[in-house]
Every structure is written in C-alpha cells, then in structure tokens.
C-alpha cells in the first residue's frame, strides 16, 4: 500500500485510482449489510460471481458487496451501474436473468423493481423510489457506492480530503471553530453542541487527551450507527482523526457493541488500511500530528452507552455511571480530558470540513442543523433507515417516505427517542423534527429510533415495555432507579393483566417523579418518559384497562379472548390444523370452536383464518359467548354442495 505523505500525494493517488477505473464499466453492487445478509445477500453475491465467470464476463463486469442504503426490509438490494438500476428482494435464482437481460441486453427485469403501493408505478432507479426521493442523504449516500472493506472506494469518492484540508491548511483551532460555527449537535442523545464539548477538552490543561466513538447503540429499534459503521467505516474514522487533531488528542477509541460483529470487523479493517496508507499513526501527512485508534467491544449492557459508564468499561471494569460533577471532556478516560461523540456525529465532521459550516447551517431549523438519520420501523410500509433534513414534519416521514401504515390500519403514535423518549400522537404529526421540538412534545430525539405504532398497539403495554427494559438494564447503583422502576414495572404489568385498581395512576406518577428527581444518571432520570407521555396522550387507555378491564387495542393477552363467529365460519379447518395448543375443535361442515381453557392466545387462528371468511374475532371487556353446540354447529351449505 502506498504511504501518503501529504494532501497532494493523496490527491495524486485518488486520480490514479480513478484513472484505473472505467465509469462506464458495468458494476453490480449488492448490499452486504447485516440486514441483507440475513435475507441471503451472501448467496446472491456468490451467484453473481459464479454466473459472471460462467458467461465469460469476468473481465468486463465488476461485482461489489457494499454498505446498507437503508431499505433493508426489501433486501437483498442490488444496484447495477452505470445505469443505476435498482432491484429489490433479489434471490440467487434471479441472477442469470439479471446478467443476460440487464447487463448484456440493457433491458430492465420488471418483476424485481419497486412498485409504489399507492400508485402502482414501478421505479427503475433508486432515486425514483418514493422512499428515497424525499430524503436528503449526506451521511449515508455513499453506502451503496462503496465496498466498505476497500479503502480505495472511499478514496475514489473523495474520502480523506477533509483530513487533508484540516491537517494541510487549517490550525486545530480553525477546525474547532468551523465545527462550532456549524452548530453540529450530538446525534447520540441529548443534542449537546459538539464544538462546545471539543473546546472544553482542547482548553483543559492536561496534555494527554482522548477521543471516543460511541457505537454502543443500545437503543432498541435503532440501527443507523450500525449501518454507518459497517457501510462507511472510513467516514467515521476520518471524522475522529479530525476531531483528535482539533482537540489535541493522540489516541482514539471506538466502542462497539458486541452484537454488531460485522461493524467490529469492518472498522478494524478500516483502521489497518488507514494505518498502511499513513492516514493514521505517526506524522500524518507530514503535519507532525500522531494519532492511533483502538477498537473496544461492549458486552451487552445498555447503560454502557452512557458516557461515564462507557469510559469505565473501556478501562476494563463493570460499566457503572458516575455522577458528573466534573464533565468527562475535562476529566474522562483514565482521568484525562475526553471527547465522546456518537458515530453519526463523527461522520458529519468530514462533510462540514469539506463543504463548510455555512453549507451545513443552510440545512435544518433554527436550533437543529444538518440532516439526521432515523430508523423508521414498526408498523410502517417502508421500513428502513431514512436520512432527512432537520425540520421535516413527522407526517412527511411517516407518510411520504414511510408510505404510511400497512394493512389499512390506522396510525396511532410514533415513539421517538428510545427508552428515554416518548410517544407522539396523531394530533402532533405536523411537528417539525428537531431536538427542541421533540422535547417540547414530551419526547426526544435520542439516537433517532422512530417506532411507528398502529391501532393494534396498546399504549399501556408500550409504557410497560420500556419501563421493564430499563428495570433490567439499570446498573442498580441508585435506589430510585433500581427499586422505583421495579415498582413501576409491577404496577404497569398488573394493569395490563387487568388487575389494576383505583390510585394506580397516581402512584405511578409519584414514582415517576422520584426517579426523575433523584436518579444518579440519565437512565433513571429519563426512564419515566415513556410512561408520562403515554399517560398524557392516551389516558383513556389506562382507564379502560383499570376500570373496564378492557384493552382497547385488543393486544394485552390477559384481557382478550379469541372467539369464532359461527355465522362466518365455513369449516375450512385451517385454524384447527394450525393451532399449536390443540385448542380448536372442528370437523367437516362443523363450526370450529375454541376451548378457552386450552387456548394460549397465540393468535395463530386469527392470522390463518382466510380473509374471505374472517371468522376469528378478538374480543376484550365482554364475556366470551358460549360455544355453539348440537344442531346449531352444523353448517348447511347452499347450491351444489348441499
């Protein structure tokens, strides 16, 4: 590998890479992100390689495993260059046809295109798909273009030019000022301005300083950090080196959760490649700046995403938070000034240096600048990662990009901010998305998880879910969090089981207040948010559970029953065959009946009963009708069948 000793040599090397590449040469890019791998992308890649070999095209067609472009649900995703034709849900069987039709004949294979569910129109290119069309992709736009395991791809796309700019022609203070001017707010949680945090470290007298990438991503339902780190690891690394230069750090750490093995693999490889090119290590670009980076793995503890706990974990101990009388940017890792930022925060840094703070602040709202990646999941038609400018409305995200709620269901709420956030109801859908706007609505930005809920989601159960999650994840160091959350979990569970009573809501409120006031770290302090926001917007659901022993969403197991409507049942016996508990009795021309004693409420019968019969019903808060018996059970068929 060539060692690059100056920004000029970097530019020269980039030109060399580009000159070796023919932009018109067909290239088949297959997403090799973890979502697509789970859907069989590796088999598809292998099939492409074999088919290309078989058809004697090895010299004329390239294949490439790339990072995640965000539309994981429709994976494996394949994009064919130079035409940029996008195929979804590609299987190995489709490969010969793609090669002979699209690559050789330049014809589009219709059945592999995206079909807009609203208009029925087919989209040939990625940018024609409604899911992508309304996004503004600055951070993840390169994911589908580059092989994340190959530094040349990153360099060819302009990679490390921001590092060249920073080290070659800017002083550390100038870099710092640019990031401050951009008003880049942290993408991992509270939205603290990165430049201000950096400045505190830079000005701390201690000469030994550290920078850290927080890639713990403990927030369930969020996976943008995973996609960025897996798909474009060099962009994070480049941001980290620039940050290290700005504050005067010699070492950096990347703290990745253990559950993300591919992210660990790709970032480790990226570090080795950057070292080999002289972009990391001693005397980078001849500037006299030395910087090294290490990868540290988490071991499955949510609280380790919290900054002080994370540093304790890097030091090799149990990751318990400490009170923040002194900020970590002054006394952090091993007692030295440490800047900890989220993956996405770091990935924005090269963009700011390349394009300038003015460009960055031209996107977004008054107080929230730039774009943000959200993971749009749950009950939504287009599931995946979406990168949008701050200030876009929740409605646009859910309906324009997300394509609305599938199955003709009604939207109920969108949960943002993870376990520290809250649920936003339909009446607030026009809210512009920004740090302060979400907080004002009783939720928060958090790391950018957006979980869409439809009418079948019970809001009491949602609150219980998050409180339970945090009860399990509490480090246990302080009483309001450890014991308070446990009691909240108990009460909420009781309510979902129909055992709630008068005064429960008030007791929950008191516990919530105590946890908010008296917990040591933000885990405990923010834990009551999901409860408080669901109570604020969906109080009637709490009351239905407590007073009427009814779950309006027909979701809480203890409060519902499955029954078969004798008028609708056509004795197809599908439910009889599929019921795992053997709870359904049926026969030829006999209405099926459910033995409520045996039924485990798994819902299989509800799902398998053919829509044209629609005979299985969920009920809540009303008595189960007695099963039909005797003559009444017999189905008298009309016409030829009788």
């Amino acid at each position, binding site marked *: 590998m060539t060692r690059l000793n100056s920004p000029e040599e970097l530019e020269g090397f980039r030109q060399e890479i580009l000159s070796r590449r023919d932009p018109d040469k067909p290239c088949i890019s297959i997403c090799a992100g*973890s*979502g697509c*791998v*789970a*859907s069989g992308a590796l088999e598809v890649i292998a099939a492409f390689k074999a088919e290309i070999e078989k058809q004697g095209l090895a010299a004329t067609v390239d294949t490439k495993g790339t990072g995640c472009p965000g539309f*994981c*649900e429709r*994976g494996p995703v394949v994009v064919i260059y130079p035409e940029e034709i996008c195929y979804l849900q590609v299987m190995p069987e489709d490969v010969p046809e793609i090669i002979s039709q699209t690559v050789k004949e330049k014809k589009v294979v219709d059945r592999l295109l995206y079909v807009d569910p609203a208009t029925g129109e087919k989209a040939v290119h990625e940018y024609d798909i409604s899911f992508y069309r309304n996004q503004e992709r600055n951070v993840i736009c390169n994911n589908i273009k580059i092989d994340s395991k190959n530094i040349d791809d990153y360099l060819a796309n302009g990679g490390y030019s921001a590092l060249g700019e920073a080290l070659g022609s800017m002083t550390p203070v100038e870099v710092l000022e640019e990031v401050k001017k951009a008003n880049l707010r942290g993408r991992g949680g509270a939205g603290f301005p990165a430049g201000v945090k950096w400045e505190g470290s830079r000005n701390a007298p201690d000469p030994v300083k550290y920078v850290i990438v927080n890639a713990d*991503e*403990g*927030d*369930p*339902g*969020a*996976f943008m950090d*995973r*996609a960025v780190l897996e798909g474009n690891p060099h962009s994070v690394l480049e941001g980290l080196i620039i940050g290290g230069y700005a504050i005067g750090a010699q070492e950096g750490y990347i703290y990745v959760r*253990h*559950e*993300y*093995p591919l992210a660990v693999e790709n970032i480790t490889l990226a570090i080795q490649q950057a070292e080999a090119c002289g972009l990391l290590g001693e005397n980078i670009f001849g500037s006299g700046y030395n910087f090294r980076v290490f990868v*540290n*793995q*988490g*071991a*499955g*503890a*949510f609280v380790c995403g919290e900054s002080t706990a994370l540093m304790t*974990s*890097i*030091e*090799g*101990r*149990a*990751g*318990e938070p400490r009170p923040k009388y002194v900020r970590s940017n002054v006394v952090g890792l091993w007692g030295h000034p440490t800047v900890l930022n989220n993956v996405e925060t770091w990935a924005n840094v090269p963009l700011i240096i390349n394009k300038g703070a003015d460009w960055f602040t031209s996107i977004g709202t008054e107080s929230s600048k730039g774009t943000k990646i959200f*993971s749009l*999941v*749950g*009950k939504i038609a287009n*599931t*995946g990662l979406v990168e949008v400018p701050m200030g876009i409305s929740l409605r646009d995200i859910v309906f324009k990009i997300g394509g609305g709620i599938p199955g003709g269901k009604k939207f109920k709420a969108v*949960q943002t901010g*993870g376990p520290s956030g809250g649920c936003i109801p339909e009446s607030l859908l026009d809210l512009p998305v920004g740090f302060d706007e979400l907080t004002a609505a009783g939720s928060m930005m958090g790391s950018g*998880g957006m*979980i869409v809920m439809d009418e079948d*989601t019970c809001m009491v159960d*949602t609150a219980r*879910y*998050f409180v339970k*999650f945090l009860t399990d*994840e509490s*480090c246990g160091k302080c009483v309001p969090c450890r014991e308070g959350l446990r009691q909240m979990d108990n009460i909420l569970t009781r309510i979902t089981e129909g055992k709630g009573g008068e005064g429960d809501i008030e007791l929950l409120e008191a516990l919530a207040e105590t946890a908010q006031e008296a917990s040591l770290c933000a885990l405990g302090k923010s834990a009551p948010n999901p409860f408080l926001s669901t109570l604020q917007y969906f109080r009637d659901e709490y009351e239905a559970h407590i007073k009427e022993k009814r779950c309006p969403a027909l979701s809480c197991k203890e409060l519902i029953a499955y029954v078969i409507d004798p008028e609708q049942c056509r004795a197809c016996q599908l439910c009889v065959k*599929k019921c*795992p508990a053997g709870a359904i009795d049926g026969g030829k021309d006999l209405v099926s009946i459910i033995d409520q004693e045996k039924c*485990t409420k*798994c*819902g*299989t019968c509800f*799902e398998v009963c053919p829509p044209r019969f629609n005979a299985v019903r969920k009920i809540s808060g009303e008595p189960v009708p007695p099963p039909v018996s005797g003559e009444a059970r017999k189905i008298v068929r009309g016409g030829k069948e009788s």
Partner: protein
Amino acid sequence: MDNERIDQIIEKHHGASSALIQILLDIQEENHWLPKEALDRVSEKLQVPLTTVRHAATFYKVFSTVPKGRHQVHVCLGTACHVRGANRVLDTVEEMTGIKPGETDLDLKFSLETVNCLGCCALGPVMEIDGKVYGKATPSKTIDVLKKYE
C-alpha cells in the same frame, strides 16, 4: 479450556488489566461460557482481584458463568420486534424447548436468551441462532426453524 489457551488470549491483549472485558469476551467466544478456573487464571495473570473479574463477568449480559447449550438462541425483544409480535416468537421457542430466557435445557441442546435489538429491525421480529439471523419470524416459522437443529 486450558490455561495455555487462556494465556495466549491474555498475551494477545498485552496482559493489560484494562483489557479485562476484551479478554473475557474472547474466552467466552471460544468456550461459550466462563468457568471458574478461567476467571481464576485471568485474575492471577492480570493481577486484578477475583472480585473485580467476577463483577465484570456478572455485570455484562454477554457473559455466562454456567455452561451453555450447543445452540444459542437469541430472540430479539427490541421495540421494533416487540411491536411486531416478538413475544409470540419467544412463547413458541419456550414451548418448543421447554426453557425460559437465561436457561439451558438438560440435553445441552439449546440455550435461550433475549436481546434488545440486533440491528436488523427492518426484518422484525428477529431470532438469531448461532449467529444466523432469521427475520420476519412467526410462531409457525419458528417451529420449522427450531426443528432443523440437532
């Protein structure tokens, strides 16, 4: 796991006490659980008190201080999977294997754990067995998948 192999792992991390968690992760990766003897060896070699080693080994979820089954089943209960019915998948696994999360069956065939998001949320509900991800799981699909494991 023999001491020689443990020493090699410690060596790889330059015997630094700050690498305690990374070392335990490597041991767990190979051995699937952390026997008492391994913790003793790590404590001795790193010059870290055994209580500190034990604290770390019990604090972090990934570690297990009891033996694990041949197949590690992880059911994701993250929010995205939860709203799409992950509990029904978990119920099915519990019924099929006869064990609850955190347990291993008597034949040492399956160990069951729940996790809070595997980062494949778009495919939820998600189940992972020995590192292989099964997306869009339903109770009936889960039964079919589990039957494939010996």
